[in-house]
């Protein structure tokens, strides 16, 4: 077989494996979250379907598929039908640039454990994360319902308040690694993960991805206590399911990105690379759930305040300080 075909086949295999693993993980994330959240509130959580409720995701999927897929009469039909896919697709696409293990030697070829080793991986991620909000905005807009529209507007307003600080928090990492490629960033952390060099960046990034994932304390677009269900108020059946699963894929992908950018990716002693990667992503996912089980939703203006008046200046100062130190060290 010539190398081109081999490369194509390997990429296809990687795609299928990553997609299947990601979707399964997202489905079980729902289960893990519900169980953990329940324990934090001294409840038991879903424990009826299967052993320890392990078949709950399956039951949920069957339920969602069996439900009627309604479209409101006044809705912008095509946009309404397509919007849920945007969120889920953007979340899935982001994972394409995430290296999840050390390169493997197969058929005498070096196979990198990443679907696509883009040389501008970080920019790709930032671009997709902004596009992901279109799922929220379009879904809320097309529903032609006040609650959905308010949710969509909030999603957009939230985006502009956290995105700047998120990108700025990444700049020190890029300066440390000297590359936009996520594989190079992981390689640069072989000895020491960047969280040690850039703890402030890490903190800012962590808060920003909480906002990016649209979960408590930044779940303003959904805000079920004020806006019914926010941007997906009018959705039912599997279209709602797509939004739902998109949120969990997003959670895993953001966890994976934080792992890659700050926690040293798959590097770690004793255990194989993939195990370290999954462990770190799992720890971050636990953190997401933990925060959700703890903090109440922030008010609209508080999010703006946090983004513009706290995180952004902090990120800028952090950027300058890191740049200065790096200049001093390297000179």
């Amino acid at each position, binding site marked *: 077989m010539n190398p081109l075909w081999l490369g194509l086949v390997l990429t296809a295999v990687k795609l299928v494996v990553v997609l299947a693993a990601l979707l399964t993980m997202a489905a079980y994330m729902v289960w893990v979250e519900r169980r*953990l959240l*329940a*324990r*934090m*509130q*001294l*409840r*038991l959580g879903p*424990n009826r379907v299967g052993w320890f409720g392990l078949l709950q995701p399956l039951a949920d999927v069957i339920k969602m598929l069996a439900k009627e897929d309604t479209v409101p009469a006044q809705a912008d039909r095509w946009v309404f039908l397509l919007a849920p896919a945007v969120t889920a697709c953007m979340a899935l696409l982001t994972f394409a640039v995430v290296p999840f293990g050390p390169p493997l030697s197969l058929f005498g070829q070096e196979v990198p454990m990443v679907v696509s080793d883009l040389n501008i991986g970080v920019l790709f991620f930032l671009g997709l994360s902004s596009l992901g909000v279109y799922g929220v905005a379009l879904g809320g807009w097309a529903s032609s319902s006040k609650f959905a529209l308010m949710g969509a507007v909030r999603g957009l307003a939230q985006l502009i308040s956290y995105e700047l600080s998120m990108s700025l928090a990444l700049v020190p990492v890029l300066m440390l690694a000297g590359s936009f490629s996520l594989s190079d960033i992981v390689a640069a952390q072989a000895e020491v993960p960047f969280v040690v060099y850039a703890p402030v960046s890490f903190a800012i990034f962590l808060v920003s991805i909480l906002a990016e994932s649209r979960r408590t304390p930044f779940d303003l677009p959904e805000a079920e206590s004020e806006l019914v269900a926010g941007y997906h108020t009018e959705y039912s059946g599997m279209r709602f399911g797509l939004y739902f699963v998109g949120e969990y894929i997003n959670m895993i992908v953001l966890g994976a990105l934080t792992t890659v950018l700050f926690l040293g990716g798959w590097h770690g002693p004793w255990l194989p690379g993939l195990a370290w990667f999954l462990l770190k992503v799992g720890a971050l996912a636990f953190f997401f759930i*933990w*925060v959700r*089980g*703890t*903090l109440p939703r922030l008010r609209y203006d508080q999010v703006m305040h946090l983004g513009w008046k*706290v995180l952004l200046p902090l990120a800028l100062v952090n950027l300058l300080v890191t740049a200065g130190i790096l200049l001093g060290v390297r000179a």
Partner: protein
Amino acid sequence: MTLWRSIRGTLAALGVTLKAIFRRPATIPYPEVKRVPAPRYRARIVLTRDPRGGERCVACHLCSAACPVNCISMQAAEGPDGRRYAAWFRINFSRCIFCGLCAEACPTLAIQMTPDYELCRRDPLELVFEKEDLLVEDGGKDRDYDFYRHAGIGVAQARGEGSEEEPPADVRSLLP
């Protein structure tokens, strides 16, 4: 300062939830583990009997008058000795809110609440309990209480012979 307070408050809250994970859940997994309610728990209503095994209810309608949702109905009848009883007695448990007002109103302690809370049926009509379903072979709370022993009116014994009754007064002797 506010920022520091927020950060401290957040961390403290995170600690609380983390500790909660390792505590025993308060949930009782119902069909497997059944909670034992307190003896005075207000659930399924029964009609009790007096110490001699007769029905206590005298069909006075006080319970049905007290019931805020009007779910008790009955038909009064009189026995050969002048004792009143309920010809039929019906409680619609699909409407009952288990407030306990009926049991409070009852002068004969006939109607009483029990802690049996498992009251669900596939068919709501099965929740309409007739007298036969309600009657129990027991005195329930306050077993020894016997209304007619106290307030006789010629049923359990002659007039004026009830345990807390004075002999009937000769009205003519009260004339001025």
